[in-house]
């Protein structure tokens, strides 16, 4: 079978499938290895990039969808509304998931510093994110974005988003040189005998509740 044939068959299968297809689904159907299927698939994606129907690539899951450039006319034709805009809370959660997926609820909440259960639920119901089993803990789940995420934002692939490092290059994490700054300000003296004073300042023995972020009894499937 030639690349041309592969491309044609892949397009046909994506067209009739009621859900996104994975590379491994395509390999099974075509009775070929990923090494054989992938180049054809990538060619198909490139061919259709500017067509009326594009191939969405959601981290190895593929689905056909209309080109987002035709958003308005397609929306009008379907007599549908555009998808509701994301709220500040949900977009914040989504920004974390988009760049750190798959990620647990605990990790999301550690980054945001606030409970994110309702935003997650909202995003799940809208189908913008989905749960996937957590390989390191069978009782919990990780969250990742879906093809609906791509459709909502008019992307064809996560590659349409800039790399995280690039995006945040102006926002640097503190390093040693930054920490040794400005002597005119009162700086905390280094703790001389750190282990001796636990009892004397009980009020200062408030520790971060690390448990909180490691254990989440409410996590469900």
């Amino acid at each position, binding site marked *: 079978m030639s690349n041309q044939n592969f491309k044609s068959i892949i397009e046909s299968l994506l067209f009739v499938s009621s859900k996104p297809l994975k590379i491994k689904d395509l390999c099974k159907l075509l009775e070929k290895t990923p090494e054989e299927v992938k180049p054809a698939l990538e060619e198909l994606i490139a061919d259709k990039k500017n067509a009326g129907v594009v191939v969405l690539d959601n981290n190895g899951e593929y689905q056909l969808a209309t080109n987002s450039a035709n958003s308005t006319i397609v929306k009008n034709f379907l007599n549908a509304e555009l998808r509701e805009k*994301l709220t500040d809370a949900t977009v914040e959660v989504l920004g974390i998931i988009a760049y750190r997926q798959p990620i647990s609820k605990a990790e999301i909440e550690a980054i945001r510093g606030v409970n994110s259960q309702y935003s997650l639920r909202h995003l799940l119901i809208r189908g913008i994110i989905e749960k996937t089993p957590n390989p390191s803990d069978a009782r919990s789940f990780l969250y990742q974005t879906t093809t609906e995420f791509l459709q909502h934002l008019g992307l064809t692939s996560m590659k349409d988003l800039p790399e995280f490092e690039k995006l945040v290059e102006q926002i640097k994490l503190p390093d040693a040189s930054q920490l040794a700054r400005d002597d005119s300000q009162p700086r905390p003296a280094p703790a001389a005998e*750190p282990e001796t004073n636990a009892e004397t300042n009980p009020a200062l023995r408030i520790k971060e509740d690390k448990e909180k972020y490691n254990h989440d009894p409410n996590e469900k499937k």
Partner: protein
Amino acid sequence: MLHTKTKNFEGPLDLLLSLIEQRQLDVTTIALAEVTEQFLQYIKQVEDLDPTTLADYLAIAAKLLVIKSKAILPSLEIEPEEEEAGVDLESKLILYKQFKEASKLLKLFDNKREQSWTRLVTFDEKINFYPDPSVSAKELHGAILHILSDLKELDNLPKAKIKEAFSIQEKINHLQSTLSKQIETKLSDLLKSAKNKDEVIVTFLALLELIKQEIFSAEQETLFAEVVIKKLKI
């Protein structure tokens, strides 16, 4: 409730970041110490914050207090773990700021309002029927029981959290009434009765407020001595 006062902030880190940026400061421990008062002020305003979220604000407040205490009293010695609280919160905040940038980007895409649609294959006419032989009435019953247990959990969640919440105002009232019955008390005694970490934090915040309003005073004879709380106004 929550939204009337907190709608501009997506949590304590968001609040903290915005307080620092309002003053055009970089994210440093010094900046954190400078905005601590405002942060606490904010928590006080939002007494009606939902309990789960309040706990999240209080956890950050506790860290700020450690940083602030060290800034005011450089000689103050605290556990190494708390010593790191400043750096820790600083990195946390910068990481948060990075993801804030990511969400701004997604918002940009969202605002373009360019979306795409998939097609849907359905049989309108039921010319075909393909059941799954393994799906029986028993299976459906099992699925429903599973859903019901999930729903129950979801319903119970907020109620369970409410029990753990402590209001700062309540704590202030409680402290005032404690000190109306005695001349002075020890900080350690006040904290001893705390049932959990949140209550420790709330007690501490309440004390700070009372000291600031010059209703109470706090004294420490020597560096490692007990902190004695006294009532000033009679």
